[in-house]
């Protein structure tokens, strides 16, 4: 047994001291670097390595190893990285550094160092593959392939570590201590310490290798046994070192994985025997958790061992520790131990142990209840135990002793407050359950539970307050200010719990103002913020000034006085939210930066800021459209960048268990923001496979979405953005069928949802989405400059729309597919680098014919169908048929402006295409004469450009149509004049243009001015 030796060793020295003692004494730089890494300050360590590269205070020897140390720092920093892509990128950077520095390793010592770091790199790479294989979207084969890669990396890592071990062994055995060099002995010790660290790597790798094989497999067992043996050897040899102690724990872990609980517990007992120093506490905690699992599975249940090992530690847990999941697990097991002990005594039926049985039962119930009443991972286990035991024990029962001093009264009151906090947890749970209750009987049940909990809360808080009043009357000159202040703080807690917010705020403010430097004041400040926040939120809208003023004042005091504290985080969060309401983003950023990353509100506030900045960006875009001079592009870009940064920061830091509707929406907006900046790959990753991926959430029917009142909107928007992302991914690849398949899949899902939806407007909403998608596609298409890319995109798009059209029997969907094709075909044929659009026009005609055959009930849609088909035919050069179709529409409603414009344009195109002067004439003057049933006079059903100009002039509502008509009229004259060699017509065109310019100097603004200027040039050229 080496316990006694270790106990002596650790009685006075923390583990860190032992490590430090072994570290080289001559170099504070290396020691500091190691300490930075041990404490997780990787960013500072990297900065530090930069700064010391030219520092005269650092030795030349250490400067030589800086690239290696930089690589090792990068490798170790991956322990803090959650995103596996980022993780891999950092390892790549480290590998690059190690490769670049390979030639620097020109001494055996440097070679050993380089080998060690390379071994670690390979080990961490294996972890990357293992993490990737956990993705449940992968097939079994894909997962196995990744595990195979992990195994290869681990084998290589093992080989490299073996080389490092051999190198270090040589170095140590050949090391000569120089009596003239005081640092010489320390250097040897440092090498020996490094050697132990390298030695523990072998079993670690073995254990990791075991994890790459299926649980229970022979391979897994083989590697676990090897790992356990390796750890055991290390424990035997290096039991005075931290690495040896870790080995003992790890050996127990391996035996537990192998199902050998006796062997596992025998190792854990070695750890329990160590003294209770702070340095050993984390190790003991881990050992106890392992032991709890082992004892739970062992038969017969070793209740005496459980009680003997856990009870002394559990009795000394601090309030903070009592809530830690690991300690909670240990408490549950101790509760089980008590109960089992009671059962064993009951089974003896001696009749002599009634008192002991009652005590054990009471302790068991008390402990299990305390865990079952607060949220945590072991709550369910504790609840199950309580149900299983079904014991009626009064845990409140306790000896009543008279309260005679301030200390006693305060302690009693503090105990009551602890109970208040537990009941508060019950109130919160009951509220949640009430909200989620499905049936009326459930609602009644949870309402009753909530009422009961509130009643108990009030009673308990009043008990605590009464005890605090008593304590104050018992206080005297000897009572410290700190004690009285902490009591005041607890008074504030009680008032807050009873919703007496003015009282809690008042007490807290008193403490902040009068005793800002005394313990308890900071926590009280937190209560003041919460109190005024609630009062502010519940005050009538016209009467919030007082609460707002007090809230802002308190928050500002807190962030200035206690920066970095949780309370300052709460205060900064409140200030940021208020600034957010006013869209004062500068202040929002300032306060947000004050909230610690791990603070409970950090992520959610980040999401809200991101959302707000995104909507602000959208507002600015609209503003730019309306009045381009009113806002700068850099301002718009800054809004987009800020939105993206906040959304990414908060969404990517969220754990899957933290998903809320706000966070899901943040994730969706992040997808859109990525698309906005052209980061299509990132958009798709966020959409499909991020920790909080909108499509995934819908697929798994996540309660955050399904239980939200905005459920339908979220789903619809997700589908819309998903299609947008997939179509954006189509890009210019010649064949990108996966994106087409995915887009189709989403559209199919969207239609199915609409079918089963109770929303009468569901179908119409889908059509709106179709239109938006079409408009976005058109925009996307128009931004492509290269002819080949345009062709490729058009071909992909046509395939996509064709598949949509073919598999659908819904006329609206097919109509949308045809219209979208039309839109793209028009862009193809009219923009520079024209591409043959005929196949797409023909595909559109076919789609429209199919819609007609399926039947359309809505007359407006019928008209739209005929118009679109006419346009497609015009695209195909079938002008006569197109004109006939348009004329038919005009017979129904001659004032259909869109159709009139289309008809005039069709005639002009016919003139241009067929060099047909008559068509130009009709484009200008109109055609299709018919008798007006009212006036009985002959009128043109197709008005032509001239009449359109006359009809639309001076009507601001139709300004755009007016300039289109004016342009068509003048251009038709010019082209007619050129076709017929008519100077008169060309002059007339110029005259018409000059007159228009005199009448409307602005000539339709930016959109039209340029076109009219070009037209003027063309006329002048024709005149020469």
């Amino acid at each position, binding site marked *: 047994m080496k316990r006694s030796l270790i106990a002596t060793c650790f009685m006075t020295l923390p583990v860190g001291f032992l490590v430090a003692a072994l570290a080289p004494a001559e170099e504070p730089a290396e020691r500091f670097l190691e300490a930075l890494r041990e404490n997780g300050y990787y960013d500072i360590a990297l900065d530090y390595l930069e700064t010391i590269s030219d520092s005269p*205070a650092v030795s030349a020897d250490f400067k030589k190893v800086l690239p290696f140390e930089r690589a090792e720092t990068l490798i170790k920093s991956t322990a803090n990285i959650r995103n596996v892509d980022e993780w891999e990128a950092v390892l790549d950077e480290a590998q690059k550094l190690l490769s670049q520095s390979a030639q620097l390793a020109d001494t055996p010592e440097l070679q050993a160092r380089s080998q060690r770091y390379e071994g670690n790199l390979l080990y961490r790479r294996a972890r990357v593959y293992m993490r990737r294989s956990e993705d449940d979207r992968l097939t079994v084969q894909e997962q196995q392939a990744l595990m195979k890669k992990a195994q290869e990396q681990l084998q290589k890592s093992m080989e490299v570590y073996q080389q490092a071990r051999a190198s270090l062994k040589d170095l140590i055995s050949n090391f000569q201590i120089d009596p003239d060099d005081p640092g010489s002995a320390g250097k040897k010790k440092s090498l020996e310490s490094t050697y132990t660290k390298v030695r523990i790597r072998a079993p670690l790798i073995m254990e990791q290798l075991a994890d790459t094989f299926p649980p229970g497999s022979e391979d897994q067992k083989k590697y676990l046994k090897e790992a356990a043996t390796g750890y055991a050897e290390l424990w035997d040899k290096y039991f005075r070192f931290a690495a040896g102690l870790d080995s003992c724990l790890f050996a127990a872990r391996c035996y537990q994985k192998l199902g050998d609980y006796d062997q596992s517990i025998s190792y854990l007992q070695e750890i329990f025997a160590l003294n209770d120093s702070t340095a050993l506490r984390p190790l003991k905690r881990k050992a106890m958790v392992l032991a709890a699992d082992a004892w739970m599975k062992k038969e017969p249940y070793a209740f005496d061992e459980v009680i003997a090992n856990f009870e002394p530690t559990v009795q000394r847990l601090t309030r903070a520790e009592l809530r830690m999941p690991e300690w909670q697990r240990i408490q549950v097991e101790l509760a089980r131990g008590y109960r089992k002990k009671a059962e064993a005594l009951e089974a003896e039926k001696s009749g002599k142990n009634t008192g002991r049985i009652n005590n054990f039962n009471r302790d068991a119930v008390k402990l299990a209840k305390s865990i079952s009443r607060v949220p945590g991972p072991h709550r369910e286990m504790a609840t199950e135990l309580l149900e299983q035991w079904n014991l009626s024990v009064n845990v409140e029962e306790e000896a009543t002793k008279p309260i005679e001093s301030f200390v006693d009264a305060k302690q009693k009151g503090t105990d009551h407050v602890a109970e208040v906090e537990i009941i508060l947890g019950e109130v919160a749970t009951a509220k949640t359950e009430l909200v989620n209750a499905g049936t009326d009987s459930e609602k009644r049940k949870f309402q009753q539970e909530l009422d009961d909990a509130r009643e108990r809360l009030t009673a308990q808080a009043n008990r605590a307050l009464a005890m605090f009043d008593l304590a104050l009357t018992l206080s005297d000159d000897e009572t410290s200010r700190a004690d009285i202040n902490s009591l005041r703080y607890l008074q504030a807690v009680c008032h807050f719990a009873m919703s007496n917010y003015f009282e809690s705020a008042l007490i807290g403010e008193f403490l902040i103002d009068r005793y800002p*430097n005394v313990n308890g004041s900071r926590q009280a400040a937190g209560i003041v913020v919460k109190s005024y926040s609630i009062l502010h939120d519940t005050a009538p809208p016209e009467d919030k000034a007082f609460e707002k003023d007090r809230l802002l004042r308190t928050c500002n005091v807190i962030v200035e006085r206690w920066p970095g504290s949780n309370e300052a985080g709460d205060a900064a969060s409140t200030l940021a939210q208020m600034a957010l309401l006013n869209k004062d983003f500068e202040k929002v950023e300032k306060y947000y930066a004050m909230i610690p990353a791990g603070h409970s509100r950090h992520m959610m506030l980040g999401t809200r800021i991101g959302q707000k900045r995104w909507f602000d960006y959208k507002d600015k875009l609209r503003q730019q459209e309306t009045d381009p001079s009113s806002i700068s592009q850099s301002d718009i870009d800054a809004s987009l960048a800020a939105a993206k940064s906040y959304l990414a920061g908060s969404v990517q830091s969220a754990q899957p268990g933290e998903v809320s509707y706000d966070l899901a929406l943040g994730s969706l907006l992040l997808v859109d923001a990525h698309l906005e900046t052209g980061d299509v790959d990132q958009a798709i990753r966020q959409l499909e496979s991020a920790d909080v991926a909108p499509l995934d959430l819908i697929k798994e029917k996540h309660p955050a979405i399904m239980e939200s009142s905005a459920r339908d909107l979220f789903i619809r928007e997700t589908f819309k953005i998903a299609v947008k992302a997939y179509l954006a991914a189509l890009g210019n690849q010649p064949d990108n069928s996966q994106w087409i398949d995915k887009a189709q899949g989403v559209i199919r899902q969207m239609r199915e949802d609409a079918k089963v939806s109770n929303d009468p407007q569901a179908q119409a909403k889908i059509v709106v989405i179709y239109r938006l998608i079409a408009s976005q596609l058109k925009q996307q298409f128009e931004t492509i400059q290269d002819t080949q890319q345009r062709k490729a995109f058009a071909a992909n798009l046509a395939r996509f729309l064709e598949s949509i059209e073919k598999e659908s029997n819904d006329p609206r969907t097919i109509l949308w597919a045809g219209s979208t094709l039309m839109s793209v075909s028009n862009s193809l044929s009219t923009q520079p680098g024209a591409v043959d659009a005929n196949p797409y026009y023909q595909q559109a005609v076919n789609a429209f014919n199919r819609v007609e055959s399926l039947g359309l009930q809505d007359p407006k849609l019928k008209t739209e169908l005929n118009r679109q088909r006419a346009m497609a035919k015009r695209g195909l050069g079938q002008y006569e048929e197109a004109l006939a179709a348009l004329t038919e529409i005009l017979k129904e409603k001659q004032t259909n402006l869109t159709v009139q414009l289309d008809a005039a344009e069709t005639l002009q195109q016919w003139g241009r295409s067929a060099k047909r002067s008559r068509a130009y004439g009709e484009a200008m003057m109109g055609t299709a004469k018919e008798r007006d049933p009212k006036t009985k006079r002959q009128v043109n059903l197709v008005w032509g450009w001239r009449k359109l100009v006359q009809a639309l002039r001076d009507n601001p509502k139709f300004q755009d149509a007016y300039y289109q008509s004016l342009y068509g009229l003048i251009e038709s004259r010019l082209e007619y004049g050129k076709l017929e060699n008519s100077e008169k017509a060309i002059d007339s065109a110029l005259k018409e243009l000059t007159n228009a310019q005199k009448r409307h100097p602005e000539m339709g603004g930016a959109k039209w001015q340029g076109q009219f200027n070009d037209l003027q040039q063309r006329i002048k050229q024709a005149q020469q």
Partner: protein
Amino acid sequence: MLKAACPLNLTAFCSWVMMTMLLASPESVQAQSNDSVYMKAGVGGSSVQRGKITETSKNGVTLQGRNGTEEIPAQNIKKITFAGEPSSLERAQSRLESGRYDDCLAELAKITEAPSELIQTEVAFMKAYSQAQKSLKGGDVTAQQAGSAIRAFAQNYPDSHHFYPATDMLGQLLVGIGKPDLAEKEFAKLAQSQWPSMKIQGLFQQGNALILTGDLENAKKAFSQIVEMDANDDESQQFKLVAQCQIAKIMALQGDSDGGRAIVEKIIKDENPDNALVFAHAYNALGTCHLQSQQPKPAAIAFLHTELLYGTESAPHAEALYNLCKLWPQLEETDRANRARQALKSRYRNTYWALQL
């Protein structure tokens, strides 16, 4: 001058009576007839001198031994055991030496009546000292409570050889409650001591207190006196280096950050980094230089040296933690600020630096 009361005289022939007492009384007494003065390591001559303490003063004790009367300077005394002292006193002494102040106080509580005035003085000192140490280490004794106890001791026993250590402790407690101006006056008393190491300690603490009051010129004078002292023993050498670090810090606070940095960087380069006291002060001074030059990141790195490598030096460690609390938010590292705050609050609860939060 305090005349020692006659100790309980136990003779060998009464050993059976002694045994009876040991069995019958909850509080036993030592079976020794002499006072024993244990000397510090490195002091020449016998490690223990026995006899009867006839007088005590701030500067030492007078021992009447077999070979006559001898003045033993307080600076040479490791500990004293008294003839007829209760066994609890020895146990309390042992607990005190190993830093188990609660246990020490528990043992002292068993001594209901001191057999002599010397023992009474010793008990009073150990009680006050334990409370002061508990307070300084963040225990459940407030600085006010400890300060009252230690001040009472200094007032009631001005001729105890514990007077200077008690005064030093009082000064430290006054700093801990944010009264460096009052503390400076206490430390000034130490600086007047004939006891060289106490004189250096007094000047050093006086300088530190003056920095906190903002009287940088006088602080510099105090540290300069240490540097210029004609002493070359290890302890003096160490304090001279630390004093140089503090001078460098003052230079930075007075606007000469570069000058201060040059001094402290030379110390860091030349001295053995295992010298924790010197290096903790050196890195804190370097941090202050960077702070004064508006360089928060290098400042944080400097203070981190103290935090991570020299945390055993409690006073500079608390100062480093305080500075890190203030620096991390500037570097947008609020989590780290929070950790530093927690460490300062939990480990150095009753210190000047925790009070500044």
